[in-house]
């Protein structure tokens, strides 16, 4: 016991010295140099459009890829390179602000945040770079002169999907698989359920959300989608609508294996290479023309008249809708007629589609 205090004391002094050194180093770093990475005036905005992806990034066959298609089109038509940047897992708002500011500083114009998750970051970056046009998809809370929120009436496209599902269902049971239990996906569910009920009130809609948060992989886990679809098929569903990003591939796969209908989302999934094996079972897709919206913004900037303020893309403008690329779509009795009627009623304002279930 007698020796203990001595050793403890040495350790204490040594560690104290370390702690002091660390604090000093911290102070030095902070006051160190005044130069900043994004402080300069930046280059002139001639590098074209840059998009910052949402979780899932490029290759999700859905939301992000739709936005990327818009960038590709702008590349082709305006002859610039542009840029597309991926997010990191679990990043904070500060990282998103850094990303958008960095893109603006490097001379990209417009800079588009793909997904409402960029709302706060867009607001901050737009203040710092008032001469750059910013776009934000799926969010209309940011109000600034150089910001163009690009929002969609997802519920209208989903309503048409619901009408189609009701017409195609024989078992009188249809399913909805949502990626993550968030307000945005609730719009898809609400529209779909209303479309089904308005067409045939006797049909049962089974709803399933894959995860509570995006970090748990609700938008990026085909296995989760597959399991959910299998469970719904077991309960009797013969048409399943999915709004689940990459996870939706699992839904389509499960439905095709059981020879049931799947309904795609965002892009025309009948035409997607990754799903070509199962395309015969993709009845239709409820599209959301993110690519078109993103391209429209790029075009407006290119013409020197950048869009400003909320840009709403609804059924009327063709911003949302359903596809008819699967020949089976026209073969189901009464389906096409019912969808066309519903479409007209929504455009005419005869049908109001709810945005929350």
């Amino acid at each position, binding site marked *: 016991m007698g020796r203990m205090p001595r050793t403890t004391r040495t350790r204490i002094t040594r560690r104290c010295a370390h702690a002091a050194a660390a604090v000093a180093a911290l102070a030095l770093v902070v006051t160190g140099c005044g130069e*900043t990475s994004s402080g300069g005036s930046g280059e002139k905005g001639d590098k074209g459009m840059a998009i910052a992806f949402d979780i899932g990034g490029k290759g999700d066959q859905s939301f992000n890829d739709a936005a990327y298609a818009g960038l590709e089109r702008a590349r082709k038509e305006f002859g610039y390179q542009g840029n597309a940047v991926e997010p990191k897992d679990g990043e904070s708002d500060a990282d998103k602000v850094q990303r958008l500011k960095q893109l603006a500083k490097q001379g990209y114009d417009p800079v588009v945040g793909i997904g409402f998750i960029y709302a706060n970051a867009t607001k901050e970056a737009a203040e710092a770079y008032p001469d750059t046009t910013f776009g934000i998809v799926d969010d209309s809370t940011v109000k600034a002169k150089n910001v163009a929120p690009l929002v969609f009436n997802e519920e209208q496209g989903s309503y048409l999907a619901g009408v189609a599902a009701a017409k195609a269902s024989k078992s009188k049971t249809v399913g909805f698989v949502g990626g993550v239990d968030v307000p945005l996906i609730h719009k898809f569910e609400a529209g779909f359920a209303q479309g089904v009920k308005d067409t045939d009130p006797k049909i049962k809609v089974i709803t399933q959300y894959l995860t509570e948060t995006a970090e748990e992989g609700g938008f990026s886990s085909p296995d989760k989608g597959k399991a959910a679809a299998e469970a719904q098929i077991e309960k009797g569903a013969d048409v399943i609508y999915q709004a689940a990003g990459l996870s939706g591939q699992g839904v389509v796969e499960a439905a095709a294996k059981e020879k049931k209908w799947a309904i795609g989302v965002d892009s025309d999934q009948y035409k997607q290479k990754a799903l070509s094996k199962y395309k015969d079972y993709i009845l239709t897709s409820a599209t959301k023309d993110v690519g078109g919206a993103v391209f429209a913004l790029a075009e407006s900037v290119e013409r020197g008249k950048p869009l400003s303020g909320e840009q709403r893309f609804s059924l009327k403008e063709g911003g949302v809708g359903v596809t008819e690329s699967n020949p089976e779509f026209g073969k189901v009795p009464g389906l096409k007629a019912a969808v066309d009627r519903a479409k007209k009623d929504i455009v005419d304002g005869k049908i109001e589609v709810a945005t929350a279930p």
Partner: protein
Amino acid sequence: MKKFDKERLLLGAAGPAIALVVAVLLTSVVLLASGKSPFEPYAIMLEQAGFADIQVLILNAAAGYYIAALAVAVGFRMNLFNIGVEGQYRLAAMVTAVVGAKVALPGALQLPLLVLVAALTGAFWAGIAGLLKVTRGVSEVVSTIMLNSIATAVIGYFTLPKVFGVQQGNNKTTGEMHDSGWFPNLDLGPAGELYGFVFVAVALGIAYWVVLNRTRFGFDLRATGASESAAAASGVNAKRMVLTAMLLSGAVAGLAGLPTLLNDTHTYSLSFPTSLGFTAIGIALLGRGGPVGIAFASLLWAFLDKASAELDYRGYDTEIAVIMQGLIVIAVVVSYEAVGRWGLRRQQQRVGKELAAGHVLGKTGAPGTSGETGTSGDNNDKEVAAR
């Protein structure tokens, strides 16, 4: 005496240094294999670290990492593996955000209240795992992982608009907190704003060191971690220590989300950063559970995170940083074990030499005696850190 300290220091620094070098080398191999320059990414990242605004981002991020890693380290000292820091800090941040939005006291009362709420929420959530372990013998590894999932569900429920949630556009938030509860930032002009919580994190590091090394409680904690039976023999109530350590770890974890919440977002929403609790496990490991080591490890992690963002614009992938972080964690585990064994062998050799030279241990004066005590101390440290 002095000579021996140098050796210990060398051994202590060798572990992380070797790990870092190995990680850099392996990352270079990855870069080479993908046909890119194996050196330029490091140059770009180091250049980035020279900019004041990136430094501020690094320090801000390091604050959260540091606090979360301290929470993990408290558990390590006690041989408890608190994987639940993830759930504890997110739940605590959410509850704090709700309280901050509903209660409006003057700043002098509001801030302490919010910090207290965060610590208590974290402690409560970790305490469940602690209680389960003490009363039913449930492994804390299993229970904390499960509690992480439950925390996610609880957060999902509380942020529903019909409970405490406020929907903003397509985002689920808890509403903006009253500004009396905003923690002051240090405005550094064009470099941005340094979170005031960075200084709280430093203070917590000092408190951690004092509690563990200068209090009876800290001694009991380390003793129980080193050998439960020995600690019990000297009158320490092991069960009570387990519960206390878990509560303490949870309380610290509860504070980990506060730099982001109180200094930046002022609301808990879908965009609140996640996986801090898992990152912290690697950082605590890299920092060997000591307050200074963890500080360096947090800074390194934050540096890799923030400085790598630039890589995207220079033709490299930011994932290089993620690869490096992963490699560092693996390399650290291996190199600590290797360095530990090597150090032990060196000590044995030296003791053998002294014996062969005819010295009798205990009569050779300071070097021999402190060497002996140091050996056992070293072993304990290593064991605690390794588990």
